[in-house]
């Protein structure tokens, strides 16, 4: 059973079926859309963390936060946990049809969340150790910017060179926003805190959610 094709290559129906079966496993668009949705999830998680801290700072003014100071290092955890669960669920759903080598490994899920969350924590620790006269949310925005840049460099949740360039630019933009904003409010910590209560969630949402939406729509 065989046939000559127009270019002289023999292609039997069985060989044609084999070719199609092989291609069936190549879902570039699905991988890209899933990666985009993961970024969108973190584009919601990051602003949510910022807004939670802004709320606490405004609801409990003063250095001891009405005795709830011990809660501060823990407030990000529920949001980050939800982000990690959503990330895992999205990639697990995609893995139903994506072949193994195109899915993200368990290490990938953890690394994605750990880099972002870890840098937020490091940023907070730095704030406490240095007692720097810079708004806390500016530090956190810098940390997220560095995190996004790191993920781009490491190629985590990245499918191709275009995405990598995009997230490199996105991460640098976040860091630049934090630096420029901090410089603009030098000498006025209260004003910087108020400003970054708006700038940080807005910038992180624009870059991460916007970037994810762009990837999803372009896939």
């Amino acid at each position, binding site marked *: 059973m065989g046939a000559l*094709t*127009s270019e002289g*290559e023999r292609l039997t129906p069985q060989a044609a079926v084999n070719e*199609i079966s092989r291609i069936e496993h*190549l*879902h570039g668009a699905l991988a890209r859309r899933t990666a985009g949705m993961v970024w969108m999830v973190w584009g919601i998680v990051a602003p949510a963390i910022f807004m939670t801290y802004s709320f606490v700072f405004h609801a409990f003014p003063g250095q001891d936060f009405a005795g709830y100071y011990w809660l501060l290092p823990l407030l990000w955890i529920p949001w980050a946990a939800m982000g990690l669960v959503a990330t895992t669920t999205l990639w697990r759903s995609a893995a139903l049809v994506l072949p193994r080598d195109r899915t993200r490994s368990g290490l990938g899920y953890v690394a994605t969340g750990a880099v972002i969350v870890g840098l937020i924590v490091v940023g907070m620790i730095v704030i406490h150790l240095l007692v720097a006269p810079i708004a806390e949310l500016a530090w956190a925005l810098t940390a997220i910017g560095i995190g996004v840049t790191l993920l781009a460099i490491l190629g985590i949740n990245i499918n191709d*060179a*275009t995405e990598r*360039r995009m997230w490199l630019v996105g991460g640098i933009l976040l860091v630049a926003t934090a630096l420029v904003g901090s410089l603009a409010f030098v000498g006025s910590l209260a004003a910087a805190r108020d400003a970054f209560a708006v700038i940080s969630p807005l910038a992180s949402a624009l870059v991460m959610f916007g970037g994810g939406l762009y990837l999803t729509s*372009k896939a």
Partner: protein
Amino acid sequence: MALPTLDPVIHQPTRLRIMALLYRNRVAAFTWVRDTLALTDGNLDTHAAKLEEAGYVKRGRTLDIGGFQVKMKITPEGDAAFRAYLDGLRVYLEIGPATGSTPPEGPP
């Protein structure tokens, strides 16, 4: 039962792979198709032109991060043709082996 004629535009190894890839992904960057199927620029261009000529694929430039990118998109005609091709293959696999039939040859 008469065996169907397999579309000669699609029934060629490289074009079949391109069509299968686009059928699955709908739209794909030229460079991604080239790298995924391990083709050269010239090879992909030649086969894409044939598919475009048949109205199965459409190529266009879109502005993306890092500059313009050539995208390949399967057309509704291409979608229908690929479905018909799959149906034809199914018939060959069900009946062909029993009757010893072979698909018809494509045009020279």
